[in-house]
């Protein structure tokens, strides 16, 4: 398979993640959509690394993996704080900055 197939796969995964990001009301569902987008980016990077030779794509993909994991950790801590303050994690109701 050429590189185009992997790039199209990554684009489709990314757009599914965008759809989930816009659509999801629950905060953890939103984080799952962000995970999809990060995985799409990783597939893209590793595909370029394989088809172009060299390490750079995989190194970049490892960096983005670690950063995404850190982001999910902080995001879930924020979700827990939000749950303690409001009682639910519906993001369409959490629209005021006060409190």
């Amino acid at each position, binding site marked *: 398979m050429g590189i185009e197939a992997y790039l199209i796969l990554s684009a489709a995964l990314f757009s599914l993640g965008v*759809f989930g990001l816009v659509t999801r009301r629950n905060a953890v569902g939103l984080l799952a959509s962000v995970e999809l987008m990060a995985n799409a980016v990783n597939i893209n990077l*590793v595909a370029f690394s394989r088809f172009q030779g060299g390490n750079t794509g995989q190194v970049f993909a490892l960096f983005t993996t*670690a950063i995404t994991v850190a982001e999910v950790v902080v995001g*879930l*801590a924020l979700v827990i704080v939000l749950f303690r303050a409001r*009682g639910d994690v519906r993001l*369409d109701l959490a629209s005021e900055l006060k409190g």
Partner: protein
Amino acid sequence: MIEQIGFYVVSTALLVSALRVVTAKNLVHTVLWLGLTLAFTAITFLMLHAPFMAAIQIILYTGGVLTLMLFGVMLTHRDTGLLTVPNPSNRRTSGVLLGAAVFAMVLAAIIRTDSLPDAAPVPMPIAGLGLAFLTEHVLAFEVLSLLLLAAVLGAIVLARKGDPLPGRDVEAPRIAARPEPKPNTDAPPAAPHRELEPVSKG
């Protein structure tokens, strides 16, 4: 030929499970389908001759992030029965339009690119990756470790309960059903303290 069939099977499974992630009605289902998506991404990495990435994907994502998300789901629902966590969604048409627009944009960019790289697969030793981390990208590597430390500390400080930070009011959550503990001043404890009887020496 086999490689092409394998690619189509894996990519179809990946896209179907990603679709189920964003359209599941139950939040626990979303997280479980996400686990399956992450596993299929690891298989995609194997198809791309990147076994180390596949292993890291399994360990970090399906082993770590998935567990964290399950914890997040379980800790943030209101005691309504664990298996029916509702997961509604709104703004579907604008979501579909936006997703289609993003896909069309990237697809156009892929098609219009003149020359995409196309080389034969070169076996890449994992030691080369480690060396690249420690020689060429060492600064980013160290900054990444600082970032992970900051993330862990930040998560602990954010999600900790109890000791109030100065200026932050922890004792007043807005959840209604949390009565404050009444101090027990009514009656002395019922059963008086009984002394241990001395062991009789026979």
